[in-house]
């Protein structure tokens, strides 16, 4: 058997094992014959081990044969043969120095978490749901890491986003997880929109979504992009927004602590380690674009440094362990992004792997915190030392208090987004709604003159509580209905 064939087989195994896992979990649930806890755990174990062995064999063979770039093709799925508007959707996976470590990391962490969760969630009503989301997540991670085209990457990216949001809202009998899950989902949508626009722009620029075409033929990280600098800046900024949403960089940081609503293992692996690094991974993948534009690199570094400083500030004042760890993660992700912006790609990759392992362990052990502190105190033999921090010595009280409030309020980021992004959006949509109602009124009033105003109001399909007062700006501001609108708005966005 020639090496190419073995590469193909191993590559297919890496992608197929999570896909088969998802198919088994999903289909058995769909036909109403869910698997037992033990079987679910076994299947997960088998899929992860198979995937991990295949990934490691790919790595070993790549090292042995000194190949740095292996592609596994699943063929063209969509081809629109048009000379001007050519489009093809090519399902292609690439093994290179970036994707192989990332895939192995995903398998190791997901496998460990799978074993952890199968015991941790024992007898939990949502056990199946968790593992189906888990299979989605694993497949999404593998597809994203190995993606050879931007469309494939987007596909995996979406799977990860969907399963993450569903896992935040895992305990859906309570209100808070749903609210926070919805918030995460909303931020993800913004990131996805930016990603999609970037993908389409790239398509237009290069005529295909393949990273090879995009970055030149060199294996990662040596590729050189061939698009003009201005386009690179535009595409890079869009991708940066996508990455910032996924990695909770400033200004999207608000969702990260909120994501700690799910069961501990999902918080650990998804928001603590894997999912939160996807943004950084995306930037690494498209790093040749960053090289093209200095402005872009500067922006990336700025976003990273701001996030790191913000995370470090906020982590200091968190009262609960999971939020503290979430912001600590943000700090590291910020540094990683800054490293990418500065062009240190290998360091960023090593940093991602180290940070992911460490943070997963820390988050899984989060419930031991009290015990750990006792152990530490016993070892040191006194209360834990509380050093005078540098800031304390250098800053006066009012400045420190300002920083304290800033950190405690999590940088007012959620508030700013709500006030300056969400509110204008809602206002515009409301205005459109009102205009549409007016138009409908105008059209229907001519036919239904006999119907009274009140009846018309209750026919209103958009907001049952609002009567015709909706048309009056003044009344809107004072009416009870507007309060309710605001409340429901809060529910959505909180």
């Amino acid at each position, binding site marked *: 058997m020639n090496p190419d064939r073995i590469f193909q087989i191993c590559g297919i195994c890496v992608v197929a094992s999570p896909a088969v896992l998802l198919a088994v979990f999903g289909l058995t649930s769909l036909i109403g014959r869910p698997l037992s806890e033990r079987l679910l755990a076994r299947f997960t174990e088998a899929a992860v081990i198979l995937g991990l062995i295949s990934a490691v064999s790919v790595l070993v063979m790549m090292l042995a044969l000194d190949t740095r770039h292996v592609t596994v093709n699943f063929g063209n799925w969509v081809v629109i043969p048009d000379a001007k508007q050519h489009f093809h959707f090519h399902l292609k996976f690439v093994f290179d120095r970036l994707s192989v470590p990332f895939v192995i990391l995903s398998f*190791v962490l997901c496998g*460990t978490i799978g*074993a*952890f969760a199968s*015991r*941790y*969630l*024992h*007898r*939990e009503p949502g056990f199946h749901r968790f593992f189906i989301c888990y299979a989605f997540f694993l497949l999404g991670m593998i597809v994203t890491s190995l993606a050879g085209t931007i469309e494939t990457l987007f596909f995996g990216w979406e799977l990860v986003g969907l399963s993450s949001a569903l896992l935040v809202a895992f*305990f859906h009998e*309570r209100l*808070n*997880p749903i609210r*926070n899950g919805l918030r995460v989902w909303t931020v993800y949508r913004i990131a996805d929109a930016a990603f999609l626009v970037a993908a389409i722009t790239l398509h237009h620029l290069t005529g295909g979504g393949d990273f090879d075409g995009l970055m030149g033929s060199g294996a990662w990280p040596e590729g050189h992009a061939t698009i003009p600098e201005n386009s690179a800046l535009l595409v890079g900024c869009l991708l940066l927004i996508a990455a910032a949403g996924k990695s909770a960089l400033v200004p999207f940081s608000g969702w990260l*602590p*909120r*994501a*700690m*609503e799910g069961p*501990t*293992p999902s918080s650990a692996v998804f928001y603590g380690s894997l999912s939160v690094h996807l943004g950084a991974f995306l930037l690494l993948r498209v790093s040749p674009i960053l090289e093209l534009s200095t402005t872009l690199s500067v922006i990336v570094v700025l976003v990273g440094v701001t996030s790191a400083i913000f995370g*470090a500030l906020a982590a*200091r004042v968190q*009262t*609960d*362990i*999971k939020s*503290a*760890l979430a912001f*600590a993660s943000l*700090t*590291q992700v910020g*540094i*990683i992004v800054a490293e990418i912006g500065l062009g240190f790609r290998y360091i960023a990759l090593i940093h991602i*792997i*180290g*940070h*992911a*392992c*460490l*943070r*997963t362990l820390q988050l*899984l*052990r*989060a*419930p*031991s*915190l*009290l*015990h*750990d502190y006792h152990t*530490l*105190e*016993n*070892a*040191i*033999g006194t209360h*834990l*030392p509380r050093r005078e921090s540098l800031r304390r010595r250098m800053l006066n009280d009012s400045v420190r208090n300002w920083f304290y409030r800033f950190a405690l309020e999590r940088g007012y980021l959620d508030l700013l987004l709500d006030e300056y992004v969400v509110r204008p959006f809602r206002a515009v949509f409301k205005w459109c709604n009102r205009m549409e109602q007016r138009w409908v009124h105008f059209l229907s009033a001519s036919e239904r003159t006999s119907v009274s105003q009140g009846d018309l109001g209750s026919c209103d399909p958009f907001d049952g509580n609002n009567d015709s007062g909706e048309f009056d700006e003044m009344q809107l501001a004072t009416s009870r209905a507007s309060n309710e609108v605001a409340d429901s708005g809060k529910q959505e966005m909180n």
Partner: protein
Amino acid sequence: MYYRGVTDAHFRPLCPVNIKPRHYVTEEPTYSVARMSERQAATRRRIGRATHQAHMGSRTVVGGLLTGLLGSLAAFPLVARILFPRTAARVRNVLGRIVRPSATQLRIERLADTPGEHNGHLGYSIDEMANIVEGGLRSIGLARPEKISQLVLICGHGSGSVNNPHESAYNCGACSGGRGGPNARAFSQMANDHRVRGKLTERGLAIPDDVHFIGGYHNTCDDSLTWFDLDQLPIRLRSVFERAQAVVDDARARSAKERCRRFASAPLGITPGEALAHVEGRSEDLSQARPEYNHATCALCFVGRREWSRNLFLDRRAFLTSYDPTQDGPNSPILERLLQAVIPVCAGISLEYYFSTVDNEAYGCGNKLPHNLTSLLGVMTGASSDLRPGLAAQMVEIHEPMRLLFVVDSTSETMLRIIETNPAIAQLVRGEWVQLAVFQPESARVELFAHGQFVAYSAESLNLPIVETSDDWTRGYRDHLGFASISTKGIRV
């Protein structure tokens, strides 16, 4: 008493929470290993400081950068502790032993007049020791020379689990959620003291010279037993101790097996040896939300002679308190003192489980899985919520909410007098927070306390199933089981 172990930084009270102890006891390395121990303490301090630095550092920018770059190493403990919890725990134990003193002793005898937490004021005077030993022996019915055997094992209990913010909820309630091993150790050391024994003989409680006490600690989670101060065991008692140890080891495995019946993740046909391994793995498993079920399903508290409860299968649902009415005085002072502790403690435990079960969200702390430690003092649910007191759903899921039934080996007149004179007991019994019955062996009558008086209770059936071993009775069942009598044939000892 306040206790500080050899590797502890602070004293902690090991007594019921409503009592403020006056006495301080410390554990020290034995004199011969004292210098070695100082070095170990220094090593512990260094490791502790480094761990603390790493712990805090991993959350800051600069420290975090370093730990992030070296963080891949964390993959090893991560994978090992989750996939092989028992092995990982053994390795950690072996490593931990390097920095712990090998031999320790309790400083229990006070030199100064007043108790306090500083040197010289630590411990108890001989008179105080004699009082404690006398009280203890009399209340458990060992105050007669013919009742006491050569080797007396006194055990405290606690529960060791990992990754569990509710760890102290599994520990000893009479130690304010601490671990009762040091109490047992101190008691044994006091009872072995010849000066204490001399004082006791003067008070008419003679402990024969060949009797030796050994303190122990029972970890109810992994069913392990640790014995203290075995070096002081007289050589002639070694064989007795070894026999006892063999019996205890057998009992541990059987106990683990009976407990495994309730764990859905343990197969029903598990052998005692496998069961022991299973509970050991459970206690060291980071992902285990139910290290043990502790007092869940508690339904009964029997206060009386052990002869009446021996060979009864009570499905691990009873608190058994030894009390011998024949050794009690005319006005039952021993029983009164015993019940002053037993009724509030057991009722407290039972009611805690009761309320956490009937409304887990309001009185309990709900599902344990999204719990998030906050402010280093409690847990909240998810990213933000109220502090959640009470027991978790995972702790009470097999509990059957019911009021605890106390069955006391005494007469109704005595019990009515005790209720009259003890408002704390009266509140619980008259308020019907618990049920109370007296059991009179002489007349084989049971009287139940109802509406302020004792009324005769007639049993529905006097037939108790008789089985050879508890295994025959429980085989194949995970749910609650009725009581049964174990025929003595089945017991191998």
